[in-house]
């Protein structure tokens, strides 16, 4: 079982660094999502549960204010010696002539440390009905042009987010899980190459659905009835956010998870991503996560399909 390194930061420490770096006026527009949000929620300042947060995903909400707030945050951070993270052919800011799809995402590294970087995203617009396609909004800064991306179901992270003591908010674990489940109705072929999960490429669906299992596992650690509460929260979120499509979406929430459970290789890969990610400090094997998956299906998903 891997143990956190001594020099790793706790999720609360990273959350505080991020929040304090963001101009106070913009903090209420920021919702942290992804592994930092989950780590902060479940582990807080627990030194034994430090997680390897590499990319801190900050979503700007609401969509109407996203590009303005993102511009202000980017310029403030660059003025405070943050730097643009350059990776491969992406990273160099574009200009007015750069097509939207060639603009780099806003990825900023804080000064004097290399453990994590901040990636800015946007909540989807009100017209978004949960389509899977990625949408890009241009952010014009003094340092150049960037893209702010959003995905259809990312909007679920905006549903009743939780607050931190530093003013930024973070997505509820169950909403991140729902977004991932809806995003992967099948085990697609898209892969994440090397790096965080080792030299072997990992299917994106396995990583994202593995995250769902990790979130469910950690929620069940806190509350044995958590899956039933997820179900109620999901119903509320889907009928609020997508009133026209809620029934259709509810009917397909579990399809990807069923696919995952039906494939031993995919399931084991999902377990591996969990043990390198959110569940890193815990010794959780496939049997335990299979039990979690069954509870998730029976108590959170099935009530919505009936």
């Amino acid at each position, binding site marked *: 079982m891997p143990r956190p390194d001594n020099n790793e930061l706790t999720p609360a420490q990273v959350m505080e660094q991020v929040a304090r770096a963001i101009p106070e006026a913009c903090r209420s527009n920021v919702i942290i999502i992804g592994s930092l949000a989950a780590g902060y929620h479940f582990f807080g300042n627990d030194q034994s549960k430090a997680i390897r947060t590499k990319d801190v995903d900050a979503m700007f909400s609401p969509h109407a204010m996203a590009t303005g707030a993102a511009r202000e945050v980017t310029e403030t951070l660059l003025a405070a010696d943050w730097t643009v993270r350059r990776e491969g052919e992406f990273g160099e800011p574009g200009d007015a002539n750069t097509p939207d799809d060639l603009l780099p995402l806003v990825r900023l590294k804080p000064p004097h440390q290399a453990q994590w970087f901040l990636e800015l995203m946007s909540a989807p617009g009100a017209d978004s009905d949960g389509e899977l396609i990625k949408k890009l909004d241009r952010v014009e800064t003094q340092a150049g042009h960037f893209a702010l991306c959003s995905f259809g179901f990312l909007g679920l992270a905006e549903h009743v987010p939780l607050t931190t003591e530093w003013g930024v908010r973070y997505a509820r674990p169950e909403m991140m899980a729902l977004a991932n489940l809806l995003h992967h109705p099948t085990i697609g072929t898209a892969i994440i190459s090397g790096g965080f999960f080792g030299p072997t490429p990992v299917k994106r669906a396995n990583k994202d659905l593995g995250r769902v299992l990790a979130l469910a*596992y950690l929620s*069940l*650690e806190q509350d*044995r*009835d958590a899956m039933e509460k997820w179900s109620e929260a999901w119903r509320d979120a889907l009928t609020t956010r997508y009133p026209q499509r809620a029934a259709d979406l509810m009917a397909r929430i579990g399809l990807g998870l069923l696919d995952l459970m039906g494939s031993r290789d995919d399931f084991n890969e999902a377990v591996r991503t969990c043990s390198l990610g959110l569940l890193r400090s815990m010794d*959780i*094997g496939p*049997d*335990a*996560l*299979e*039990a*979690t998956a*069954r*509870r998730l*299906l*029976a*108590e959170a998903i099935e009530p919505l399909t009936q």
Partner: protein
Amino acid sequence: MSLTIHRPDGSKSSKRQSTYQSALKPNVRWVDSHWGTWLLEIASGPGLRDMQGKLMNLAVLLDHEPRDVQALCTIASEKVTQERLQNELTQMRQVIRPDLAMRLHVARSDKSGENVLLEPSLPAALKEVVTKAVRKAANARRRSPGGTQLDVFAYLIRSWLADKGPILVKDIQKAVGASHPTVAAGLEQLKKQGVLNRLSDRSVELKGFPRDEWPRWLLATSQARKIARYVDPSRHARGPHEMAARLSKATKQNVAISGVVGALQHFPDLDITSAPRLDLCISTEPGREDLAFVRKLDAGLVRDDDASYPVLAVHMLPLRSDKQFVEIDGRFFADPLECMVALYDMKLYEPANEMLEDLIRRQEKSAKPVG
């Protein structure tokens, strides 16, 4: 099932299958089949628990048999590997007397009795015998056999605890669904032990609590009983009380709460801080049990009948057993006797004994003197 009659001196009755004579003999044990000098037991899978009990039974039997008698226990399940089976036999042989151990054998077949795997040293002709025995045992299970002597004993205990007074033999027969010879045999045993009063109107009554026979009954009952055991691989299972609270929503079947949670209804002073598991009872035809409701109690649980520390145990009782269930506030509870069986199965001997003594005290306080 056929019957072997063992005399106290170890010799066998010439009428091996005489059910009536069995009533006269103190050491009566059942096996599924015989073939020459072989005693055969058929265990059902998927786990080894059933087989472990049957091997024990065979070992006890062999101790009363001539030295040329051997015993074979066959597990009718393809899910058990030959290696696991041999390991089980090796372990069993280590804990029993060597002269008995070497007369004890195991085999495996599929559910229909085909594809019999025997130890190479055993007679090949046994394969056919095993196939027939497996089919016979399966048929016997399907026929939902009537009550046994164990049921007769349990009925008498329940009646005594409830201070019901003398009971007509025909009423016992009707209540437990047992044949007359079975009831007669059970009563005769108790009579010999001096704990039963036979009255002139063909009724009977226990003189007191049969303390000597009680532990034997418990052991035999737990060995004969099929219990579906469930484990929790993620340690996120709901607690026994929480699962019990969900029962009425989970199923429309009559499922009774037993074990610690059930016992607390009858004996609130039960000295157990927290229940180690939930015990439930269902009344069902053998092989036709519907356990789908378990998923609604906790979908994460996995069935493992060999588990030492399950979080849920579902006791399969004969069809008419639900008559003993007690309805309290819209929920069914197993009666005290049944709860105690579960406590003993969990090895909670001390609390179970305290509960038993309390029940006996209550009975004796309320009972009228027996004439």
